[in-house]
């Protein structure tokens, strides 16, 4: 394998991993507050079509991003009202949200299947983008990829360095204690769920506007579920979520290249590879039981009644 192909695989892996980065980091914040939202796939789909409509109507990426994030957050709001205000079961509500999202996005997208978007140009930074290897690898992506890195930095800082992050983790760990300390558990969880929805929506926008600039029903194709799994297997640590997302993207790309080179491994096995490899790697790096207990939100998925 020559070096150029290797760089191309890495560049493609970063792009392929980016939808997972957005959706999984959003879900990470939601779960850190103690809420399990299984509706990521649905929120991504609704975000994708809303972003697509925004882009098609305005031609502006910013409008597309805002539309997608708002739509994702609105979907999450439905989930939040059901589970946080009406105390419905989180697992069932999340599954219902996905089913709803699949249908709603198909309906919203009825008139948009025939439109092709121009896509999002890759940034060309003078000098930096022209550096061999490094320039291609680091400085030749579109803006949505860079903003996902900014998001990652922000989440690391927020969770582990800011007071608000500490409160969020406290709410996920021991909602009763947080309540006793005077924090509005339900309110904080609302915000966390809405943030998760907005990020899932943004992941959808990336897919429909930048990655494959078109709209077709069901185009998220299970990526929301992969994002959910990444959060759990990464034991709720942002850096591991990132590593998992790029690893998954990288192996997906690499297995196509292996096929193209005619290396004799059954393609069915290769298609499984991203899932298996990502799970194995993340389980290995997260195998420390103490660390899992430390990082998994103790009240995850449990309904919280403020008055009990």
């Amino acid at each position, binding site marked *: 394998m020559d070096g150029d*192909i290797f760089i*191309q*695989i890495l560049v*493609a892996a970063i792009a*392929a991993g980016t*939808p997972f980065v957005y959706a999984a980091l959003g879900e990470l914040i939601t779960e850190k507050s103690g809420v399990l939202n299984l509706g990521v796939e649905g929120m991504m789909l609704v975000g994708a079509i809303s972003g697509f409509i925004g882009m098609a109507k305005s031609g502006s990426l910013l409008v597309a991003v805002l539309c997608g994030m708002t739509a994702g957050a609105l979907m999450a709001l439905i989930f939040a009202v059901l589970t946080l205000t009406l105390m419905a079961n989180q697992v069932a509500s999340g599954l219902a949200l996905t089913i709803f999202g699949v249908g709603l996005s*198909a309906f919203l997208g009825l008139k948009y*299947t*025939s439109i*092709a978007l121009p*896509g999002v140009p890759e940034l060309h930074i003078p000098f930096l983008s022209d550096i061999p290897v490094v320039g291609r690898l680091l400085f030749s992506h579109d803006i949505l990829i860079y903003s996902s890195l900014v998001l990652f930095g922000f989440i690391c800082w927020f969770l582990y360095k800011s007071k608000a992050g500490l409160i969020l983790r406290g709410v996920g760990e021991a909602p009763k204690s947080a309540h006793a300390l005077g924090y509005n558990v339900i309110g904080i969880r609302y915000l966390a769920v809405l943030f998760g929805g907005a990020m899932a929506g943004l992941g959808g926008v990336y*897919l429909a506007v930048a*990655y*494959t*600039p*078109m709209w*077709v*029903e*069901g*185009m998220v*194709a299970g*990526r929301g579920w992969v994002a959910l799994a990444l959060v759990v297997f990464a034991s709720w640590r942002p850096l591991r979520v990132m590593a998992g997302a790029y690893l998954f993207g990288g192996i*997906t*790309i690499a297995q*196509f*290249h292996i*096929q*193209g*080179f*005619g290396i*004799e491994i*059954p*393609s*069915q096995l290769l*298609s499984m590879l991203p899932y298996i490899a990502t799970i194995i790697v993340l389980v290995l790096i997260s195998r420390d039981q103490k660390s899992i207990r430390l990082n998994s939100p103790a009240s995850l998925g449990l309904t919280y009644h403020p008055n009990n």
Partner: protein
Amino acid sequence: MAIGRKNVLSVFVVLLCVAGLSLTASAADKLKIGFVYISPIGDAGWTYQHDLGRLAMEKNLGDKVETKYIENVPEGPEAERVIRDLAKSGYDLIFTTSFGYMNPTLKVDKMFPKKRFEHSTGYKTAKNVGTYMCRFYEGRYLTGIVAGKMTESNTLGYVAAFPIPEVIRGINAFTLGAKSVNPDIKVKVIWVNSWFDPGKEREASEALIAQGADVITHHTDSTAPTLTAEEKGVYAIAYHSDMSKYGPKAHLTAATHVYGDFYTRTAQAVLDNTWKPEQVWSGIKEGSIELAPMNPVVPADVVALVEKTRKGIIDGSVHPFQGPIKDQSGKIVVEAGKTLSDKELLGMGYYVEGVLGKIPK
């Protein structure tokens, strides 16, 4: 109790209306035709082509027919329910347009002995069930000629769904077409193990382009390969539908399915009471396979050669699987002067010379 009585009354009214409706329906002697689609119609792809066929039939037969379609019907028990509902509500001819509808169609056929069914891509027929599909490999052969002439790297990329005979037949026909004009051609195949996943289709196309393919074609259902080719500045040959608006520069042509004539003929036969269950396998000659308009970048001599070959297929002087054909190991699989029979075509399980890689087992 008053509410209860009201309910009874309204149920009665509804029943009367339904009875009235069905009476008026049977009074008009229109042929009611139902279509069952596997996916939404959308703007390109398998189901879109079937729906174009339905619309063409409506146009041809005017008020002699009335059609209805149900889209997005999953294969399995749900399909049986949908087909049965159509039969029950007065649809006398029902087209079921996906391979997995085969057994549901046969089951419903047993319950409704007077209804006629046409199942697409299946191999089982019954007293009132016929099958139909297209010799799309003829179109593949022609697009292979275009690809073989337009490539500079002599490497063609093929994004494929599942390693089944139908898909392998297409890969081989494409390769043979390309090799007929350019013996040095190599075809790289990447299996995405999905009929429809735009993300994966894009990733596979990217990998093929990175490995030197400068013409991309696909046997999957989305427009992603064409979009990716446009973005990366290489050529694309689409499948199912004309996808030129997704890649005005990249899109050279496409092998498309055309069902209008078949649907019109079949409906007319039912109207005339001459319908018989048949296994129809029609191609370019019958107008079931057509190429999308050529991109202006394709030189006139290539267009002429494709046209000549197309005429040859129609008059029988050209067959895509015309011997001698060698498989990958160089062994002769079709001897000189022979062509493959339909049965051999339907069970194809090997790559011809020029395709790289092995068929996943």
